[in-house]
Protein backbone atom coordinates (compact mmCIF):
# COMPACT_ATOMS: atom_id res chain seq x y z
CA UNK A 1 0.00 0.00 0.00
CA UNK A 2 1.33 3.43 -0.83
CA UNK A 3 1.85 6.01 1.88
CA UNK A 4 -1.10 8.01 0.59
CA UNK A 5 -3.47 5.06 0.82
CA UNK A 6 -2.23 4.18 4.28
CA UNK A 7 -2.78 7.71 5.55
CA UNK A 8 -6.29 7.84 4.13
CA UNK A 9 -7.10 4.39 5.50
CA UNK A 10 -5.88 5.46 8.93
CA UNK A 11 -8.11 8.52 8.83
CA UNK A 12 -11.07 6.29 7.95
CA UNK A 13 -10.31 3.91 10.80
CA UNK A 14 -9.97 6.78 13.26
CA UNK A 15 -13.28 8.24 12.13
CA UNK A 16 -14.97 4.84 12.41
CA UNK A 17 -13.55 4.44 15.92
CA UNK A 18 -14.96 7.76 17.04
CA UNK A 19 -18.22 8.38 15.17
CA UNK A 20 -19.09 10.99 17.80
CA UNK A 21 -16.58 13.36 16.26
CA UNK A 22 -18.59 13.34 13.04
CA UNK A 23 -21.97 13.58 14.73
CA UNK A 24 -21.24 16.35 17.23
CA UNK A 25 -20.78 19.23 14.74
CA UNK A 26 -23.98 18.19 12.95
CA UNK A 27 -25.77 18.19 16.27
CA UNK A 28 -24.30 21.64 17.00
CA UNK A 29 -25.50 22.96 13.63
CA UNK A 30 -29.03 21.69 14.28
CA UNK A 31 -29.07 23.24 17.74
CA UNK A 32 -27.82 26.66 16.61
CA UNK A 33 -30.32 26.73 13.75
CA UNK A 34 -33.11 25.78 16.17
CA UNK A 35 -32.13 28.70 18.37
CA UNK A 36 -32.53 31.24 15.56
CA UNK A 37 -36.35 31.29 15.40
CA UNK A 38 -36.51 31.14 19.19
CA UNK A 39 -34.21 34.14 19.57
CA UNK A 40 -35.68 36.11 16.69
CA UNK A 41 -39.22 35.35 15.63
CA UNK A 42 -41.09 32.39 14.16
CA UNK A 43 -42.18 34.68 11.29
CA UNK A 44 -41.28 32.62 8.23
CA UNK A 45 -40.83 35.59 5.89
CA UNK A 46 -38.17 37.18 8.05
CA UNK A 47 -36.54 33.78 8.61
CA UNK A 48 -36.43 33.14 4.88
CA UNK A 49 -34.64 36.43 4.39
CA UNK A 50 -31.89 35.93 6.95
CA UNK A 51 -32.01 32.13 7.10
CA UNK A 52 -29.29 31.41 4.56
CA UNK A 53 -26.87 33.80 6.28
CA UNK A 54 -27.64 32.22 9.65
CA UNK A 55 -27.04 28.71 8.31
CA UNK A 56 -23.83 29.90 6.72
CA UNK A 57 -22.54 31.32 10.02
CA UNK A 58 -23.66 28.29 12.01
CA UNK A 59 -21.88 26.00 9.54
CA UNK A 60 -18.77 28.14 9.78
CA UNK A 61 -18.80 27.78 13.57
CA UNK A 62 -19.43 24.04 13.39
CA UNK A 63 -16.55 23.69 10.94
CA UNK A 64 -14.26 25.66 13.23
CA UNK A 65 -15.40 23.59 16.19
CA UNK A 66 -14.38 20.29 14.63
CA UNK A 67 -11.12 21.40 13.07
CA UNK A 68 -9.75 23.13 16.14
CA UNK A 69 -7.69 20.09 17.15
CA UNK A 70 -7.13 18.74 13.66
CA UNK A 71 -3.44 17.95 14.19
CA UNK A 72 -3.38 17.70 17.98
CA UNK A 73 -3.57 13.93 18.44
CA UNK A 74 -1.24 13.24 15.50
CA UNK A 75 1.16 15.72 17.05
CA UNK A 76 1.12 14.28 20.54
CA UNK A 77 1.40 10.62 19.48
CA UNK A 78 4.27 11.35 17.13
CA UNK A 79 2.58 10.63 13.79
CA UNK A 80 3.51 14.07 12.46
CA UNK A 81 7.14 13.43 13.34
CA UNK A 82 7.01 10.21 11.34
CA UNK A 83 5.61 12.14 8.38
CA UNK A 84 8.87 14.08 8.27
CA UNK A 85 10.69 10.85 7.45
CA UNK A 86 8.45 9.74 4.60
CA UNK A 87 9.87 10.42 1.18
CA UNK A 88 6.99 12.77 0.42
CA UNK A 89 6.82 16.55 0.88
CA UNK A 90 5.18 17.36 4.20
CA UNK A 91 2.84 19.82 2.47
CA UNK A 92 1.51 16.99 0.30
CA UNK A 93 0.73 14.81 3.33
CA UNK A 94 -0.88 17.79 5.04
CA UNK A 95 -3.00 18.27 1.93
CA UNK A 96 -4.08 14.63 2.15
CA UNK A 97 -4.98 14.99 5.80
CA UNK A 98 -7.00 18.13 5.06
CA UNK A 99 -8.78 16.39 2.18
CA UNK A 100 -9.69 13.47 4.43
CA UNK A 101 -10.88 15.92 7.06
CA UNK A 102 -13.04 17.73 4.53
CA UNK A 103 -14.60 14.48 3.30
CA UNK A 104 -15.26 13.04 6.76
CA UNK A 105 -16.07 16.09 8.85
CA UNK A 106 -17.07 18.97 6.57
CA UNK A 107 -19.03 17.25 3.82
CA UNK A 108 -21.65 15.92 6.31
CA UNK A 109 -22.28 19.53 7.41
CA UNK A 110 -22.85 20.55 3.81
CA UNK A 111 -25.16 17.59 3.22
CA UNK A 112 -27.20 18.68 6.22
CA UNK A 113 -27.63 22.23 4.93
CA UNK A 114 -30.75 21.58 2.78
CA UNK A 115 -32.46 20.14 5.87
CA UNK A 116 -31.67 23.09 8.10
CA UNK A 117 -32.63 25.39 5.21
CA UNK A 118 -36.10 23.82 5.40
CA UNK A 119 -36.19 24.52 9.15
CA UNK A 120 -35.68 28.23 8.47
CA UNK A 121 -38.05 28.20 5.46
CA UNK A 122 -35.34 29.24 3.05
CA UNK A 123 -36.74 29.11 -0.51
CA UNK A 124 -35.68 26.15 -2.64
CA UNK A 125 -33.47 27.92 -5.17
CA UNK A 126 -31.63 29.83 -2.42
CA UNK A 127 -31.16 26.56 -0.58
CA UNK A 128 -29.56 25.05 -3.68
CA UNK A 129 -27.33 28.12 -4.02
CA UNK A 130 -26.37 27.75 -0.35
CA UNK A 131 -25.47 24.10 -0.88
CA UNK A 132 -23.29 24.89 -3.91
CA UNK A 133 -21.67 27.86 -2.16
CA UNK A 134 -20.69 25.69 0.75
CA UNK A 135 -19.34 23.02 -1.53
CA UNK A 136 -17.16 25.60 -3.28
CA UNK A 137 -16.13 27.66 -0.24
CA UNK A 138 -15.43 25.04 2.44
CA UNK A 139 -12.12 23.78 1.01
CA UNK A 140 -10.63 27.25 1.64
CA UNK A 141 -12.15 27.39 5.12
CA UNK A 142 -10.88 23.89 5.94
CA UNK A 143 -7.37 24.84 4.84
CA UNK A 144 -7.34 28.00 6.95
CA UNK A 145 -8.74 26.34 10.04
CA UNK A 146 -6.10 23.65 9.56
CA UNK A 147 -3.51 26.41 9.57
CA UNK A 148 -4.97 27.76 12.81
CA UNK A 149 -4.75 24.29 14.33
CA UNK A 150 -1.15 23.87 13.18
CA UNK A 151 -0.04 27.29 14.41
CA UNK A 152 -1.38 26.65 17.90
CA UNK A 153 0.12 23.15 18.22
CA UNK A 154 2.88 24.44 20.46
CA UNK A 155 0.57 26.56 22.61
CA UNK A 156 0.28 25.43 26.18
CA UNK A 157 -3.38 26.25 26.68
CA UNK A 158 -4.55 27.02 23.19
CA UNK A 159 -8.30 26.77 23.87
CA UNK A 160 -10.12 28.52 21.05
CA UNK A 161 -7.02 30.51 20.09
CA UNK A 162 -6.72 28.77 16.71
CA UNK A 163 -10.27 29.86 15.90
CA UNK A 164 -9.65 33.44 16.98
CA UNK A 165 -6.47 33.60 14.96
CA UNK A 166 -8.03 32.30 11.76
CA UNK A 167 -11.42 34.05 11.77
CA UNK A 168 -10.14 37.35 10.30
CA UNK A 169 -8.74 35.43 7.32
CA UNK A 170 -12.22 34.07 6.54
CA UNK A 171 -13.48 37.52 5.53
CA UNK A 172 -13.09 37.19 1.74
CA UNK A 173 -14.87 33.82 1.72
CA UNK A 174 -17.73 35.05 3.89
CA UNK A 175 -18.14 38.21 1.81
CA UNK A 176 -18.17 36.38 -1.52
CA UNK A 177 -20.54 33.71 -0.17
CA UNK A 178 -22.95 36.36 1.08
CA UNK A 179 -22.77 37.92 -2.39
CA UNK A 180 -23.79 34.61 -3.96
CA UNK A 181 -26.69 34.20 -1.53
CA UNK A 182 -27.95 37.75 -2.03
CA UNK A 183 -27.85 37.32 -5.79
CA UNK A 184 -29.63 33.98 -5.50
CA UNK A 185 -32.38 35.71 -3.54
CA UNK A 186 -32.65 38.42 -6.21
CA UNK A 187 -32.65 35.76 -8.89
CA UNK A 188 -29.61 37.29 -10.61
CA UNK A 189 -26.47 35.64 -11.96
CA UNK A 190 -24.40 33.85 -9.29
CA UNK A 191 -21.85 32.08 -11.46
CA UNK A 192 -19.14 34.81 -11.54
CA UNK A 193 -19.01 35.00 -7.76
CA UNK A 194 -19.00 31.23 -7.44
CA UNK A 195 -16.08 31.16 -9.84
CA UNK A 196 -14.21 33.68 -7.69
CA UNK A 197 -14.95 31.62 -4.58
CA UNK A 198 -13.73 28.53 -6.38
CA UNK A 199 -10.55 30.33 -7.39
CA UNK A 200 -9.96 31.31 -3.78
CA UNK A 201 -10.52 27.73 -2.67
CA UNK A 202 -8.14 26.34 -5.27
CA UNK A 203 -5.45 28.90 -4.40
CA UNK A 204 -5.85 28.11 -0.69
CA UNK A 205 -5.73 24.39 -1.31
CA UNK A 206 -2.43 24.82 -3.13
CA UNK A 207 -0.73 27.40 -0.90
CA UNK A 208 -2.05 26.94 2.63
CA UNK A 209 -0.74 23.35 3.09
CA UNK A 210 2.75 24.78 2.56
CA UNK A 211 2.23 27.22 5.41
CA UNK A 212 0.70 24.44 7.52
CA UNK A 213 3.72 22.20 6.92
CA UNK A 214 6.03 25.06 7.94
CA UNK A 215 4.04 25.58 11.14
CA UNK A 216 4.19 21.85 11.92
CA UNK A 217 7.94 21.79 11.36
CA UNK A 218 8.45 24.79 13.67
CA UNK A 219 6.29 23.25 16.38
CA UNK A 220 7.96 19.84 16.16
CA UNK A 221 11.38 21.49 16.35
CA UNK A 222 10.35 23.58 19.33
CA UNK A 223 8.90 20.75 21.37
CA UNK A 224 12.20 18.89 21.72
Amino acid at each position, binding site marked *: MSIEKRILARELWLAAARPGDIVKPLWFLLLVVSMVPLALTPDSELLAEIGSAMIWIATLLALLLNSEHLFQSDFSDGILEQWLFFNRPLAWLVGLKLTAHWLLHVLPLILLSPVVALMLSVPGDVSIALFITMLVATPALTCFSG*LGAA*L*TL*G*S*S*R*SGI*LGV*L*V*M*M*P*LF*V*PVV*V*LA*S*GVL*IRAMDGSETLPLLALLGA*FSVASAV*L*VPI*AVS*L*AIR*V*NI*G*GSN
Partner: protein
Amino acid sequence: MRWRWFHQWGSPRWFYERAGRWQLVCGWLSLGLIAVGTIWGLGFAPVDYQQGNSYRIIYLHVPVAFLAQAMYGAMAVSAVVLFVWKMKIADVAMQSIAIIGFAFTALALGSGAVWGKPTWGTYWVWDARLTSMLILAFLYLALIGLRASIRDPDQAGKVCGILILVGVVNLPIIKYSVEWWNTLHQPASLKLTEKPTMPASMWIPLLINILGYYIVAAYLVLGSMRAILVERERRSSWVRELVKRV
Protein backbone atom coordinates in the same frame (compact mmCIF):
# COMPACT_ATOMS: atom_id res chain seq x y z
CA MET B 1 34.90 44.46 6.92
CA ARG B 2 32.43 45.23 4.21
CA TRP B 3 29.81 43.04 5.85
CA ARG B 4 30.33 44.38 9.32
CA TRP B 5 27.37 46.74 9.16
CA PHE B 6 25.24 43.71 8.41
CA HIS B 7 26.59 41.35 11.05
CA GLN B 8 26.34 43.94 13.76
CA TRP B 9 22.58 43.44 13.67
CA GLY B 10 23.11 39.97 15.01
CA SER B 11 24.47 41.36 18.26
CA PRO B 12 21.80 42.27 20.80
CA ARG B 13 24.25 44.34 22.80
CA TRP B 14 25.27 46.44 19.81
CA PHE B 15 21.65 47.01 18.94
CA TYR B 16 20.67 47.86 22.50
CA GLU B 17 23.28 50.59 22.76
CA ARG B 18 22.75 51.97 19.28
CA ALA B 19 18.95 51.92 19.63
CA GLY B 20 19.22 53.97 22.79
CA ARG B 21 20.88 56.78 20.84
CA TRP B 22 18.46 56.53 17.91
CA GLN B 23 15.59 56.59 20.33
CA LEU B 24 16.77 59.86 21.79
CA VAL B 25 16.98 61.46 18.34
CA CYS B 26 13.59 60.08 17.30
CA GLY B 27 11.99 61.22 20.53
CA TRP B 28 13.00 64.86 20.27
CA LEU B 29 12.46 65.03 16.51
CA SER B 30 8.95 63.63 16.71
CA LEU B 31 8.07 65.82 19.66
CA GLY B 32 9.09 68.89 17.68
CA LEU B 33 7.29 67.84 14.51
CA ILE B 34 4.08 66.82 16.24
CA ALA B 35 4.06 70.00 18.31
CA VAL B 36 4.42 72.16 15.18
CA GLY B 37 1.94 70.11 13.12
CA THR B 38 -0.67 69.88 15.85
CA ILE B 39 -0.55 73.51 16.97
CA TRP B 40 -0.62 74.66 13.35
CA GLY B 41 -3.40 72.22 12.45
CA LEU B 42 -5.60 72.83 15.47
CA GLY B 43 -4.94 76.53 15.93
CA PHE B 44 -4.14 78.13 12.63
CA ALA B 45 -5.32 75.98 9.73
CA PRO B 46 -8.50 77.35 8.12
CA VAL B 47 -11.93 76.04 9.09
CA ASP B 48 -13.47 73.56 6.66
CA TYR B 49 -16.52 75.04 4.95
CA GLN B 50 -18.47 71.79 5.17
CA GLN B 51 -17.40 70.10 8.37
CA GLY B 52 -16.45 73.13 10.41
CA ASN B 53 -13.92 72.52 13.11
CA SER B 54 -14.61 68.80 13.48
CA TYR B 55 -12.42 68.05 10.49
CA ARG B 56 -9.40 68.89 12.61
CA ILE B 57 -9.34 65.34 13.93
CA ILE B 58 -7.53 64.43 10.71
CA TYR B 59 -4.36 65.77 12.31
CA LEU B 60 -4.54 62.75 14.61
CA HIS B 61 -6.69 60.31 12.67
CA VAL B 62 -4.90 60.29 9.32
CA PRO B 63 -1.38 59.77 10.74
CA VAL B 64 -2.42 56.92 13.04
CA ALA B 65 -4.46 55.28 10.26
CA PHE B 66 -1.42 55.49 7.96
CA LEU B 67 0.73 53.90 10.63
CA ALA B 68 -1.76 51.18 11.49
CA GLN B 69 -1.21 49.80 7.99
CA ALA B 70 2.47 50.70 7.62
CA MET B 71 3.27 48.84 10.83
CA TYR B 72 1.93 45.62 9.33
CA GLY B 73 4.25 46.12 6.37
CA ALA B 74 7.20 46.68 8.71
CA MET B 75 6.25 43.53 10.59
CA ALA B 76 6.13 41.54 7.34
CA VAL B 77 9.60 42.79 6.38
CA SER B 78 10.84 41.71 9.82
CA ALA B 79 9.27 38.28 9.31
CA VAL B 80 11.07 37.89 5.97
CA VAL B 81 14.35 38.95 7.60
CA LEU B 82 13.75 36.41 10.37
CA PHE B 83 13.17 33.55 7.94
CA VAL B 84 15.92 34.46 5.47
CA TRP B 85 18.73 35.58 7.78
CA LYS B 86 17.54 34.04 11.09
CA MET B 87 18.16 37.31 12.86
CA LYS B 88 16.75 37.30 16.36
CA ILE B 89 16.48 41.06 16.37
CA ALA B 90 13.84 40.76 13.62
CA ASP B 91 11.72 38.63 15.92
CA VAL B 92 12.04 41.23 18.68
CA ALA B 93 10.90 43.83 16.15
CA MET B 94 7.90 41.68 15.20
CA GLN B 95 6.88 41.37 18.83
CA SER B 96 7.14 45.12 19.46
CA ILE B 97 5.39 46.13 16.25
CA ALA B 98 2.44 43.80 16.85
CA ILE B 99 1.56 45.55 20.10
CA ILE B 100 2.25 49.09 18.91
CA GLY B 101 0.53 48.43 15.59
CA PHE B 102 -2.53 47.26 17.45
CA ALA B 103 -2.46 50.42 19.55
CA PHE B 104 -2.35 52.59 16.42
CA THR B 105 -5.18 50.62 14.82
CA ALA B 106 -7.31 51.02 17.94
CA LEU B 107 -6.49 54.72 18.01
CA ALA B 108 -7.46 55.07 14.34
CA LEU B 109 -10.78 53.31 14.95
CA GLY B 110 -11.42 55.35 18.10
CA SER B 111 -10.59 58.72 16.58
CA GLY B 112 -12.63 57.79 13.51
CA ALA B 113 -15.63 57.00 15.69
CA VAL B 114 -15.31 60.32 17.52
CA TRP B 115 -15.23 62.11 14.18
CA GLY B 116 -18.05 60.01 12.73
CA LYS B 117 -20.55 61.07 15.38
CA PRO B 118 -20.78 64.78 14.46
CA THR B 119 -20.21 64.19 10.73
CA TRP B 120 -22.15 61.03 9.91
CA GLY B 121 -24.36 61.08 13.01
CA THR B 122 -23.12 57.67 14.12
CA TYR B 123 -20.04 56.23 15.77
CA TRP B 124 -19.83 53.25 13.47
CA VAL B 125 -20.90 52.32 9.95
CA TRP B 126 -20.02 49.18 8.07
CA ASP B 127 -18.02 51.14 5.59
CA ALA B 128 -15.35 49.25 3.68
CA ARG B 129 -12.45 51.16 5.16
CA LEU B 130 -13.72 50.93 8.70
CA THR B 131 -14.34 47.23 8.32
CA SER B 132 -10.94 46.42 6.88
CA MET B 133 -9.37 48.42 9.72
CA LEU B 134 -11.34 46.36 12.21
CA ILE B 135 -10.12 43.15 10.59
CA LEU B 136 -6.57 44.50 10.77
CA ALA B 137 -7.04 45.08 14.50
CA PHE B 138 -8.19 41.46 14.87
CA LEU B 139 -5.09 40.29 13.00
CA TYR B 140 -2.81 42.25 15.31
CA LEU B 141 -4.67 40.77 18.29
CA ALA B 142 -4.23 37.29 16.81
CA LEU B 143 -0.48 37.84 16.64
CA ILE B 144 -0.32 39.09 20.22
CA GLY B 145 -2.44 36.18 21.48
CA LEU B 146 -0.51 33.59 19.51
CA ARG B 147 2.81 34.81 20.84
CA ALA B 148 1.53 34.93 24.39
CA SER B 149 0.41 31.30 24.18
CA ILE B 150 3.82 29.86 23.23
CA ARG B 151 6.47 29.73 25.89
CA ASP B 152 9.65 29.35 23.84
CA PRO B 153 10.39 32.78 22.25
CA ASP B 154 12.18 31.33 19.19
CA GLN B 155 9.31 29.02 18.41
CA ALA B 156 6.77 31.78 19.06
CA GLY B 157 8.66 34.06 16.68
CA LYS B 158 8.61 31.56 13.83
CA VAL B 159 4.95 30.69 14.33
CA CYS B 160 4.02 34.38 14.37
CA GLY B 161 6.18 34.93 11.30
CA ILE B 162 4.16 32.33 9.38
CA LEU B 163 0.90 34.02 10.39
CA ILE B 164 2.26 37.46 9.46
CA LEU B 165 3.25 36.27 5.98
CA VAL B 166 -0.08 34.51 5.43
CA GLY B 167 -1.74 37.75 6.54
CA VAL B 168 0.30 39.79 4.09
CA VAL B 169 -1.00 37.70 1.20
CA ASN B 170 -4.52 37.91 2.57
CA LEU B 171 -4.75 41.55 3.59
CA PRO B 172 -5.12 42.91 0.03
CA ILE B 173 -7.73 40.23 -0.73
CA ILE B 174 -9.60 41.15 2.46
CA LYS B 175 -9.40 44.83 1.57
CA TYR B 176 -10.72 44.36 -1.96
CA SER B 177 -13.42 41.92 -0.94
CA VAL B 178 -14.67 44.26 1.77
CA GLU B 179 -14.68 47.18 -0.64
CA TRP B 180 -16.67 45.13 -3.11
CA TRP B 181 -19.06 43.96 -0.38
CA ASN B 182 -19.77 47.46 0.81
CA THR B 183 -20.66 48.75 -2.63
CA LEU B 184 -22.95 45.76 -2.97
CA HIS B 185 -24.80 46.37 0.25
CA GLN B 186 -25.24 50.11 0.31
CA PRO B 187 -25.16 52.89 -2.22
CA ALA B 188 -22.40 55.46 -1.92
CA SER B 189 -24.41 57.64 0.44
CA LEU B 190 -21.62 57.42 3.01
CA LYS B 191 -18.09 57.94 1.93
CA LEU B 192 -15.05 59.03 3.84
CA THR B 193 -15.36 62.61 2.66
CA GLU B 194 -11.84 63.14 1.52
CA LYS B 195 -11.58 66.46 -0.20
CA PRO B 196 -9.77 66.15 -3.49
CA THR B 197 -8.50 69.66 -3.08
CA MET B 198 -7.23 70.96 0.21
CA PRO B 199 -5.58 74.30 0.69
CA ALA B 200 -1.88 74.10 1.47
CA SER B 201 -2.43 75.60 4.92
CA MET B 202 -4.45 72.49 5.71
CA TRP B 203 -2.27 69.75 4.26
CA ILE B 204 1.17 71.05 5.21
CA PRO B 205 0.52 70.65 8.95
CA LEU B 206 -1.02 67.26 8.16
CA LEU B 207 2.12 66.21 6.35
CA ILE B 208 4.27 67.41 9.25
CA ASN B 209 2.14 65.39 11.64
CA ILE B 210 2.30 62.27 9.49
CA LEU B 211 6.08 62.52 9.48
CA GLY B 212 6.10 63.17 13.22
CA TYR B 213 3.91 60.13 13.93
CA TYR B 214 6.10 57.91 11.79
CA ILE B 215 9.08 58.97 13.85
CA VAL B 216 7.21 58.58 17.13
CA ALA B 217 6.33 55.06 16.00
CA ALA B 218 10.02 54.38 15.46
CA TYR B 219 10.68 55.80 18.93
CA LEU B 220 8.09 53.51 20.52
CA VAL B 221 9.24 50.43 18.61
CA LEU B 222 12.89 51.04 19.52
CA GLY B 223 12.00 51.52 23.17
CA SER B 224 9.91 48.41 23.30
CA MET B 225 12.55 46.40 21.42
CA ARG B 226 15.18 47.43 23.95
CA ALA B 227 12.96 46.38 26.83
CA ILE B 228 12.21 43.00 25.21
CA LEU B 229 15.91 42.47 24.43
CA VAL B 230 16.93 43.04 28.04
CA GLU B 231 14.28 40.61 29.19
CA ARG B 232 15.21 37.91 26.69
CA GLU B 233 18.95 38.31 27.24
CA ARG B 234 18.64 38.56 30.99
CA ARG B 235 21.05 35.68 31.49
CA SER B 236 23.81 37.16 29.33
CA SER B 237 26.78 38.98 30.80
CA TRP B 238 26.16 42.33 29.12
CA VAL B 239 22.70 42.63 30.64
CA ARG B 240 24.10 41.80 34.06
CA GLU B 241 26.74 44.49 33.65
CA LEU B 242 24.06 46.91 32.54
CA VAL B 243 21.94 46.16 35.60
CA LYS B 244 24.95 46.57 37.90
CA ARG B 245 25.69 49.99 36.44
CA VAL B 246 22.17 51.25 37.15
